[in-house]
């Protein structure tokens, strides 16, 4: 049967299914897209705005989308295939050889980045943001991607790092380089404190407990006013200096000492290299850890905890070390964050931040370090693109901010990524270390826990 016959014979059912999908979408969109509740100010001043056009557009999109899906992607025999580990187009990115060439190229680019002609303040800030997220992604990857422990409260460690630096430098006058290891240590301690109770929990319980833990930390930061400044946060945190040389116009400052003309860019460039150095440090430590016995134990733990235990791996230590090391990098990044912003408040450390970092790890392919880089770039870049979509204000009204859609798209991307390519964009779930000649146990089977 040719493709044409097939489509024409199944044309009516297809339309029927699309109509059903549209009806369902109508009910889904009615209370969201279709009717908006607006407060006009008073206690009982709620009124409704009807947006039939928007509702119609939404339903129309679903109708067309369903038809397109049926024509191009739907399984032809009508049977839903279970999601499998797929290796295709982007597999090349995951292979060790390509990663070995792209990695250094990226690093060279990153080092040269501040000196490129288009790098102004805005671009550099963006670069700093991307690298911060890359670093956080790598930290969380140890916990989620390698050890297979779903941590939804990672931002708590980021917060611990940030507040450690802020408090230590404000109260004791510690410098950045002194605070950095302390912040990492404190965050790692918190990682262990969190790790202990959750050791025997399964994946989903663990996820909720870490989520609760993240919230506990945030609530404490928000309400312990005497210590953390409450919702006002802590401001006037000392900025890091270049080996004791501050970035200002004083005669003892960085510019004067090196005989340069003072420019505020110097501090930004310094911060850029600082986070780059931290990120590269994270990368190398993780890459080396993966090849050590502890790293192999993490990956074994991810695949099968019971098998792990029966092979004599101490799962307690393995889990705790994953938590602690992941948290430590979160603490480093947090400390950098505080140094860069010179201001911390609990608002920077809410669940959405955890979700963002998790999305980066998931979209980057769980255990691919290169993947994290690409997804962090895509994410931060995507947010910047969203800012450009001001025309959406015409549809959603003036108080609509397109960058609000950021997390909405993340959520959607996480779902689609799991459905379409559960191993992420750059999918390596092969063990980092294996024997010279591979056995015939395929990755697909390992992934199902049946390897």
């Amino acid at each position: 049967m040719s493709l044409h016959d097939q489509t024409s014979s199944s044309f009516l059912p297809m339309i029927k299914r699309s109509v059903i999908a549209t009806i369902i979408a109508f009910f889904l969109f009615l209370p969201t897209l279709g009717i908006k509740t607006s407060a006009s100010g008073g206690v009982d001043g709620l009124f409704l705005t009807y947006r039939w056009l928007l509702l119609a557009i939404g339903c129309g999109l679903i109708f067309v989308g369903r038809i397109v899906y049926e024509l191009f992607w739907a399984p032809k025999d009508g049977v839903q295939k279970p999601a499998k580990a797929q290796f295709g187009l982007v597999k090349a990115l995951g292979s060790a050889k390509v990663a070995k060439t792209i990695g250094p190229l990226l690093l060279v680019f990153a080092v040269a980045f501040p000196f490129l002609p288009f790098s102004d303040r805005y671009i550099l800030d963006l670069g700093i943001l991307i690298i911060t997220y890359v670093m956080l992604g790598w930290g969380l990857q140890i916990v989620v991607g390698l050890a297979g422990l779903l941590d939804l409260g990672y931002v708590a460690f980021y917060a611990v790092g940030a507040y450690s630096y802020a408090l230590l430098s404000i109260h004791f006058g510690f410098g950045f380089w002194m605070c950095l290891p302390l912040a990492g240590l404190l965050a790692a301690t918190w990682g262990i404190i969190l790790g202990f109770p959750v050791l025997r929990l399964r994946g989903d319980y663990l996820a909720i407990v870490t989520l609760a833990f993240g919230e506990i930390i945030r609530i404490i930061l928000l309400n312990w006013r005497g210590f953390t400044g409450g919702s006002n946060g802590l401001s006037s945190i000392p900025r890091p200096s270049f080996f004791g040389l501050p970035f200002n116009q004083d005669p003892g400052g960085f510019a004067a000492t090196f005989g340069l003309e003072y420019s505020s860019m110097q501090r930004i460039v310094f911060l850029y290299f600082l986070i780059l150095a931290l990120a590269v440090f994270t990368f190398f430590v993780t890459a080396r850890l993966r090849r050590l016995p502890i790293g192999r134990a993490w990956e074994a733990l991810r695949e099968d905890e019971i098998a792990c235990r029966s092979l004599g791996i101490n799962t307690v230590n393995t889990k705790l070390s994953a938590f602690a090391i992941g948290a430590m990098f979160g603490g480093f990044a947090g400390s950098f964050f505080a140094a860069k912003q010179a201001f911390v408040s609990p608002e920077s450390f809410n669940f959405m931040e955890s979700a963002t970092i998790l999305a980066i790890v998931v979209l980057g392919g769980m255990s691919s370090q290169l993947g994290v880089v690409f997804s962090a770039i895509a994410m931060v870049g995507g947010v910047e693109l969203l800012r450009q979509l001001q025309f959406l204000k015409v549809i959603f009204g003036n108080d609509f901010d397109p960058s609000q859609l950021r997390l909405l798209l993340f959520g959607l991307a996480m779902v689609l990524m799991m459905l379409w390519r559960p191993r992420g964009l750059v999918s390596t779930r092969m063990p980092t270390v294996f024997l010279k000649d591979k056995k015939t146990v395929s990755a697909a089977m390992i992934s199902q826990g049946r390897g």
Partner: protein
Amino acid sequence: MNYFIQQLINGLTLGSIYGLIAIGYTMVYGIIGMVNFAHGDVFMVGAFVSLITVIIFGVTGTTNIALGIGALILVAAISMFIAGVYGWTIERLAYRPLRGSFRLAPLITAIGVSIFLQNFVQATQGARVKPMSAIISGGFTILEGNDFVVRITYMQILIIVLTFLLMSGFTYLISKTSLGRAQRACEQDMKMAMLLGIDVNTTISTTFVIGAALAAVAGLMYLLYYGVIDFYIGFSAGIKAFTAAVLGGVGSLPGAMLGGLVIGLIEVFFAAYFSSEYKDVAAFSMLIIVLIFMPQGLLGRPEIEKV
């Protein structure tokens, strides 16, 4: 003493709401063994649908109880229906294709769905809180001490009675109907149930729809009780309801209800006697404590991990 009784009443009301949400968690966990992270957000959607319907009907502040209850039943039916559609769609699109995939996959989609729903509602309904005045006002004075007056509002009675009715109806559904039998069969052994001719997919879908519908009722109650909702309520209510489900023993329906009441009481009493700022910390710490010392919960069976 009077203050204590008043807090007890408030705690039971709040606990009823948590219990209703917790049922959704516990049922889904029982049948497919995953935590439905998006459940709290279905609750939030239910609250929004209720808000919209209440405004459409335009019945607020009535003291006519018959009219109030009639309107509320209609509101509840509509939001149960729409939340049910949400529950069905979420299961169909995000969880069913991943059945049999690796362990973390459905969890991650669940988190994705949760983030999506929160931000979808935020984008379409706005980020501001939505205040609403009470539909049924008034109440009884139970005790009149010299220093403190204990009152129970009609709304609180309604919430507690409605929860009780839903729970009994639901217990009947699970224990006596063929749907309930199918659900219990799937819970025990999905493959075997399939072999015996039970439509597993439909059963699971129905479970999601029922859970979502109950969450919508809880959403309506939340709206009535607090009078303020926003797109973020599903998050903390979701964690607390999950705590309730764990505390009661995951998989056990009476346990979910019991756990809900306990969590509601803990939260209210902590806020009343210690600090209202840290009441969420109390509830969340409870979750961690329960998981450490009593992972099988109050009424649950210990879980045996099979290879």
